[in-house]
């Protein structure tokens, strides 16, 4: 499986990547900053990462998960720094032959990310 992982303060603009002829399914997830956190109205969240380890762990998780859910490629971008309400904190795109492994990989990866990848929401603005 081809894996690309990017952690950056850049605004996330989901790539509309071309699809090769073996691909039948593209599943994506975008996590966006909501306007309230713990019932408080907010304008932004601040994210921080331990970048080398976060990238390494994401690679490893995706490699592990692809054994159970075979997919062609995964692209993950996580934004750090200050992210205004309505903008994306994370975008993941999975390409596979069929939709079932693409959905499964996407959902399982998000669960694992929230347990094991050293990225934090450190502040609300």
């Amino acid at each position, binding site marked *: 499986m081809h894996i690309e992982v990017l952690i950056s303060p850049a605004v996330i603009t989901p790539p509309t990547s071309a699809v090769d002829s073996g691909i039948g399914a593209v599943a994506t997830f975008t996590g966006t900053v909501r306007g309230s956190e713990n019932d408080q109205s907010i304008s932004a969240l601040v994210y921080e990462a331990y970048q080398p380890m976060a990238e390494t762990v994401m690679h490893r998780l995706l490699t592990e998960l692809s054994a159970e859910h075979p997919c062609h490629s995964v692209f993950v971008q996580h934004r750090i720094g200050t992210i205004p309400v309505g903008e994306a904190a994370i975008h993941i795109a999975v390409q596979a032959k069929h939709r079932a492994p693409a959905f499964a990989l996407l959902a399982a990866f998000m669960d694992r990310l929230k347990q094991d990848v050293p*990225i934090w*929401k450190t502040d609300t603005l």
Partner: protein
Amino acid sequence: MTVLYFAHARRITGISQEEIPVRAPLSSTTFWDQLIQRHPDLASLRTSSRLACGNDFLPIDAVLEPTDEIVVIPPVSGG
């Protein structure tokens, strides 16, 4: 031994990195005891945080070497 602090651990200690004097291998329990001696408020993160070294989480029974760079990983909240 180099220790890195992120997120709430950095906020509590007020620093993102420090050198601590360690001359012999030590258990993660002893390591935490030493950290909390230096930064008493880290006690609040002890049970919820994990330690990492070399971009990998350390098992609870890991032996830490004086030359290791140890990272304190508070509960994560990415995504």
